[in-house]
């Protein structure tokens, strides 16, 4: 028996189409915000306020000629961007968006670990895609991706455990729904560190070393054209949405908020998108504010500052959970 409701949930809302549109919308918000912060106007032509520009760019890239370098490792070169994109969308499907996750379940205990692993796999696939293109710029860009995400994955995992400790569960649904007081207030130190680690994990400024165009041209994207490039770009954007959504689930109480009238699902989706936008705006603001760091500076910042701070944060959280929060 095919469940029509489930198919609609997966394909339309809150599944694939919704995630895709949300991604494009977040891309537009980022571009517009960055432009306004830099005294520019940003996208203007496609749609009101240029809101359709990311979609237009995507479609334009799909229509472009698809070139494969002679020396590239064809299979990996072809499929890595597509698989990475799929995995990222799949990871978002585990997050409660309209009160429940896409599969209409409350998840299972441990899905936090699963989706963090998904994001690591996606980063690794991006690395592979650049590596397989057999281009010096792509190779160096890929090597930078690898060094950067391997380093920042560790503190990111540790910091993601902080809300899990407070909630006493590794299920995202439980973590999000148990936040009567958002964890941003209970563990602000973990929130700040998580945002920084996330920024580095998503390769956004000032940690956008792997695609520093003045150094390595396009980074791992150098040899990509047409549809494959479109999917690489889309993967990056979905990664950003995923990162922001993860912050929302872990620290801002997920989609849950006051329900005024009508369907709770509507209000939950609204709260989710608004909270997501807030995080995207904060992240973009940080990006515009700084110059790009050098790869050795990025790495030493990780091993010398972020990682010890993450360990301290975890210890602090355990102490708070044991002795302080029961009093509140």
């Amino acid at each position, binding site marked *: 028996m095919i469940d029509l409701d489930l198919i609609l949930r997966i394909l339309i809302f809150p599944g694939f189409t919704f995630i895709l549109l949300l991604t494009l919308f977040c891309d537009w918000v980022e571009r517009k915000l*960055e432009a306004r*912060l*830099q*005294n*520019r106007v940003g996208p203007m032509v496609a749609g009101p306020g240029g809101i359709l520009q990311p979609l237009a760019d995507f479609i334009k890239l799909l229509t472009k000629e698809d070139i494969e370098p002679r*020396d590239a490792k064809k299979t990996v070169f072809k499929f890595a961007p597509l698989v990475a994109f799929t995995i990222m969308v799949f990871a978002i499907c585990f997050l409660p968006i309209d009160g429940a996750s896409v599969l209409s379940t409350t998840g299972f205990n441990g899905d936090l670990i699963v989706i963090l692993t998904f994001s690591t796999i996606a980063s690794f696939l991006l690395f592979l895609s650049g590596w397989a293109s*057999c281009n*010096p*710029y792509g*190779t*160096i860009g890929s090597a930078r991706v690898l060094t950067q995400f391997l380093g920042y994955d560790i503190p990111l995992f540790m910091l993601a455990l902080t809300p899990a400790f407070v909630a006493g569960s590794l299920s995202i649904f439980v973590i999000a729904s148990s936040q009567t007081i958002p964890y941003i207030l209970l563990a602000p130190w973990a929130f700040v560190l998580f945002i920084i680690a996330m920024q580095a994990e998503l390769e956004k*400024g*000032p940690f*956008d*070393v792997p695609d*520093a*165009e*003045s*150094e*390595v*041209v396009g980074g791992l994207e150098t040899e990509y054209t047409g549809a494959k490039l479109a999917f690489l770009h889309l993967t990056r954007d979905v990664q950003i949405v995923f990162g922001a959504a993860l912050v929302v689930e872990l620290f801002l109480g997920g989609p849950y908020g006051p329900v005024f009238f009508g369907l709770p699902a509507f209000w939950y989706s609204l709260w989710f998108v608004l909270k997501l936008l807030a995080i995207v705006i904060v992240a973009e603001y940080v990006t*515009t*504010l*700084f*110059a*790009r*760091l*050098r*790869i*050795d*500076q990025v790495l030493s910042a990780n091993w010398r500052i972020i990682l010890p701070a993450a360990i301290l944060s975890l210890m602090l959280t355990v102490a708070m959970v044991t002795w302080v929060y029961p009093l509140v």
Partner: protein
Amino acid sequence: MRRQNQTSNNNIDIIKVIETKLKDKVQIQLGQLGKAAIVTINGLHRDVLKAMVEADEKTAITAITGLDLGPSLGVLYHIRTSNAFLTIRAEVPKDNPKIQTVIDIIPGAIFHELEVADLLGVVFEGNQLVGHFVLSEYWPEGVYPLRKDVKANEIKLNPPPTEEKKQLEYGKVVKIIIGPQHPALLEPEKFAVTVDGETVTKVEPRIGYVHRGIEKAAESRTYLQDVYLVERICGICNTIHACNFVEGVEKILKTEVPPRAKYLRVIALELNRLHSHLLTLGHAGLEIGYETLFQYFWRDREPIMDLIELTSGNRVYSSLMTVGGVRRDLKDTDLPKIKTTLEDLRKKLPFYRQIYENEPSIKARMKKVGVLKREDALKLCVVGPVARGSGVDIDVRKDEPYEAYGEIPFKEIVYTEGDTWARMNVRMDEVEESINIVEYAIDHLPTGPFRGKAPRVVPAGEAVNRVEAPRGELFCYIKSNGTASPERVKVRTPTYANIPAFLKTAIGENIADIPPNFVSLDPCFSCTDR
């Protein structure tokens, strides 16, 4: 660390030094080609140069000019010392054009020698030219474009080699090609960078991608046409190129420029410097991934472009200079406009200075990057903000004031760190000095004609001229044979002199340090290639 108001305490009389050391061997022609021209034969140029370097640590090669003198080739070494500018003349026969190199005495001469070798076929023993340096790779052997006997329509380029399928090389060392098309360079030039991991181990330059043969083209045009031709050497600092050429011609003509024209020229030159510095300061932001800084600087550069349009009628190529003065007067009603615009810019400067001096990510990317020590700066003969960032106080506006610069008070900015940060901060401070200069010039603008009457016929003769372009000392040599067009025009642009500094400082640093290091030279390749 910023040093100010320091005085050059060098009172070395370089002519006397040469006279005592090499009394009867060389002939000194006072007052020619700078302070003096020293005629040398049989490789004595090395001894003269050695004597000068021993006497004065700031001795540096500004340029080497090659001349076709009929049966022989002339090689002119233009030397600047701490307080003088002079020329060493040498000659080599055309059938055996060999001369000893001077790169062991002054390492900074290397590019100058290679250019003369490529364009005139002088063989510098010890600094052998392999292939071509500025000319195309397909340029035929044995054809030297700046010799007079070359016929342009008979030159046949070699066919490009057939492409071979290259084997992939596996290993730890990767060769990254920066240029001719690369986002870090806005103009075409190639630097093959060998990296070990992320560390640069070797940089091989290949310039000449936009070599337009302007020096040769100038020989077939009239002097007046040449003013606009040399202006097109560079789009950014076009005014100073025209001014440099015009001053050289005026030296041969021995005409005086009316005082008002001198001030008008200074205003045009400083506006040009302002927009050039703002451009670089913003561009540096782009190179280190600081797009916000780039957008801000370029926004504030726009009013300056408007001022250039207001004063010269053109936004980019001002075409303001002409022999004997300027082509266009400034209206009195325009003066307050210029002053208010500059005042607006001055109000914004403290914010920008704060960013360049203290912003943590800028400091992380620029401090201790591309450090050029003072000794190396002297040896490599770097010029302009690159030299001033390394504690070498050379500024032609101070050392050998031209136009009205002798009458206008301004500070010479010198930083001692020698890194990218210092070079950018030199420019940051010079923006303010330029505003001061323009304001002073407007307040003290003399009345009178803005153009003198220059003679129509240029007599036979030769002249050298130096000016301070936004990127550093700009040099030109003009030789006239009494006809309507010059016999030889040589321009040495500041970027050409500064590239050796980049090649030296990039070694051992990170790949990510290349863009900020490079942009701190304010490279302009259409200048470099001419």
